[in-house]
């Protein structure tokens, strides 16, 4: 293992951390990390995800998408491109949308990370956006849906009654190959109480 973290190694690692996906992988990744020289970032970190503090072994170049999916089991965060193009991995960090595939996990220490799994109320009630998306039959294949939901949730936090135009601008970083845009926008308008 080369002690120096080169740009090439960083990019490669970011790409592959998007997929190593089992307890076995976690073990081997940890083993590999153990060989790293001292002086890097702290590996065992506390993350606040969906209102809970989780202690996680995080590699220096690990993406938030990898940590969420493969260390915390939160597979609702999807990897459509793993390079910041599609938005399927959108989560909120301190209520602001972030592409988790392009966010280093170490950069969200001490911040509030919310994924699609963290939106339900404690009693199991769906978030207004989730319920509205069901009512409007917003998802098609569903692969982009978690990202669409997180973008909509973030929008309504800052703008509870957006216009349809504002909603489409806010969600424009989320691609939907099925082309369900119209239905997602209807969902946002319904969630904001502007469609009944």
């Amino acid at each position, binding site marked *: 293992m080369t002690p120096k973290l080169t740009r090439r190694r960083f990019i*490669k690692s970011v790409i592959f951390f998007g997929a190593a996906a089992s307890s076995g992988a976690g073990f081997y990744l940890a083993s590999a990390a153990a060989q790293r020289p001292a002086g890097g970032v702290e590996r065992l970190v506390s993350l606040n995800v969906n209102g809970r503090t989780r202690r996680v072994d995080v590699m220096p170049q690990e993406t938030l998408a990898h940590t969420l*999916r493969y260390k915390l089991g939160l597979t609702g965060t999807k990897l459509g491109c793993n390079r910041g193009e*599609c938005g399927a991995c959108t989560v909120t960090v301190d209520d602001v949308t972030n592409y988790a595939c392009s966010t280093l996990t170490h950069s969200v220490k001490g911040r509030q990370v919310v994924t699609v799994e963290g939106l339900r109320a404690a009693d199991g009630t769906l978030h207004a956006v989730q319920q509205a998306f069901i009512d409007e039959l917003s998802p*098609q*294949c*569903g*692969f982009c849906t978690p990202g669409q939901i997180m973008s909509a949730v973030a929008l309504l936090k800052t703008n509870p009654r957006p216009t349809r135009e504002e909603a489409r601008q806010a969600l424009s970083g989320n*691609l939907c190959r099925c082309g369900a845009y119209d239905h997602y926008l209807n969902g946002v308008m319904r969630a904001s109480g502007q469609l009944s």
Partner: protein
Amino acid sequence: MTYKHIGKNFTPPDIEAKVTGAARYAEDFKREGMVFARLLTSPLPAGRIVNIDYSEALAMEGVVGILTTEDLPQPAPPANPSLASDIITYIGQPILAVAAVTEEIAENAIEKIRIDFERRPFIVDPLDTLVEGGPNPYPTGNTLVRNAGEAAAGTTVSGTDVGEVKWSRDAINAFRAGQVPEGAPFPEEWAFGELEAEFAQCTTIVEEPFVTIGQPHHALEPRTGMAYWENGRCYFHGSLQSHTIGIAPLAGMLGIDPANLVFINENTGGGFGGKIFPYPVMAVTGHLARKINRPVQLRITREEEFYIGSARSGMQGRMKLGLKPNGDVGAVDVIIVGDAGSGGGASNSSAAEHISLMLQPAAMRFRGVTLYTNTTPRGAQRGPGQNEMAAVLAPIFDKAIRQAGLDRMTVRRQNAPVSEDLIGPRRGALTSAFFPQAIQMGADMFNWDERQARSGQRNGNKVTGIGLGMGYHSAGASGYDGLCRIGTDGRLYLHTGVGNLGTYSYASVVRTAAEVLKVDWNNCEIVRGNTDLHLPYSTYQAGSNTMFTEVRTNFVAAQDALRKLKEIAAADLGGAADDYEIDGARVFLSSNAEQGMTYAEAAQRAVEMGGEYSGETFPDELNDVTKRSVQGLAGTGLIGVAKDTRHSGTVPSMTIGFMEIELDLGTGKYDIVDYTAVADCGTIIHPLGFRQSMNGGGVWGVGLSGYERHVYDPQNGLSANVGLYQAKIPTYLDVPLNNNTAGLNIADPQSPMGSRGVGEPSQGCAAAALSSAISDALGGHLFNRAPVTPDMIINHVAQLDHFNTGDLKTNTF
């Protein structure tokens, strides 16, 4: 007719999991001891492997196995192999796979592998191999030869071979210049009517070249798979848009009996034709897992999707179209050179068939050539052939109508097909068609007369364009199996093997059985997604097929259950089966509703009676997949199972789209101000699902005509776009803020509930409407191609018209 379920909205059972993140796709599954595979892919567009040395890679810590062509049978060209060695035909083609405990180790191991290649000449433009003396993409030739029956558009079947076809340099030069390639051979040809006689009656004739460019499928879920073996059985978590129809081909890839394959696929993150049937890389996952005896996940990256993820075929052609003085289409003569990439089939005939149905010419001739190129393998993509033809046909048809001094909507309506009309070279019948009514309905909704008056209106830099276009796809088949079960708990279990592409049609169609058996929806349960759950042999979920085909299978299964309910009641309570009827989850005597039994009681009696009632015996005509499922369910309730009969005629699904755009002459960009679309697709059995198909197809249409293209560098065969941003798909900002969609809602007589699908034509009409609107905004200018991108528009405005007819190419800039 008043229905309990049909025509009503409902909440599909899988949608909540999609909004909570609980829905699991292939990449979300883990298995103890699972390892990760990476592909080594070809850096060359054409050649062969002379030698591979992977000893250093195999010796690396963490590497657990390597799969090469030595481990896999090699299909004869042009079948697309899972791994290639002797015949490499495109950059990105998988050569071997390395399994390791992490993906990073697998990728590092790949860098240690030494390969000696031998290059071959390659081509990316189909005309470059068609010309005499041009290189061939395969060692043995450049064109598809069908030795067996015709394959579906965009697919390859066994019985295909690689042959050679060449045109003279003069013919190629003429074709490139948009002229008829005199004397050129056409392996594909069909015709009907008296072509020359009909042209002689036409007072308006246009002759135009056209070209469309291939585009990747871009399913947002890459084709990742995970497989493991236990006790001789393969458990495969995959991503297909079909389910049980894929069992036999996938088992064949793995060399096992279909009974020993468990395929798990509850959710699929998009397919669009690219995942209809098992694809070659699935064999790599399964064989590698067996070879190393560990669960293997082979994740496919976005970039790899561009190479192995299939793509729409491009085509280059020429059309001569004649209108009679009254606006009737007299004759059409069309030539199409189709690009099949390095495997698969072009969609030439399907493209021509679109014209034969939608314009109803009195005479027509189609001549075509399918050519291979050293580009990504092609496959079916949403309305293959029909939709790209719709996009290029619309402005050409507009030109003819304008020249004739007629109205674009009126001429389309007067030529539009009705039930008595015919389609294609065989002059086949239609199950039903009411398309003139759909066009009129759309025109009324769009306010055609008022809108078209705004055509060409200027507002500063912006100019208004009004377009319209038509979409068509054959939307139904028959002969598959249906299966349902009434449990001893009284619930109705609706078994389907149709797959879950995401349109919820899998759920819409099983409601047919609930309708027939008059069961409340909350007393129904859909069983799907895992072959161990005993699923019937169902159709592929593609080609706008499900709504017609699977309504039929669920209907016959429910009819079988209904017969058994009545017979059981008659056996226990007396009288004849015909004396009984059903309602409220009871079967009872028509003359005395008190005398009857609940569905739960009838199911219990079915178990006690055995035989066909509980699935211990079943019709021999069922597919083996269904037979195994019925055997698995035997003794668990009342089984309704039957094989559908055959329908007759083409099942046409047709759409008309109207679009108003504001095109900015300063930037070449445009805003879609309004989009209105109406479908003639039979009874709408799920209104929200119908809207979703229409709107989603509309977005795809904007992509086809406005943005998406798959192009290659002709100097080295590299794809110029391997990312979503390079082969741009429409975003929220590229499509209308609101859509207006409607269905004619006239039942098809050969669907028990009257339904036909609409997924494909919903794209075609939008693509056609957009290309028509762009042309209209520019005073009828023809770009003769799809897509028409803003750079082409701005070049035209600047009077740099080399994008017009002088430089038409597919696959290259």
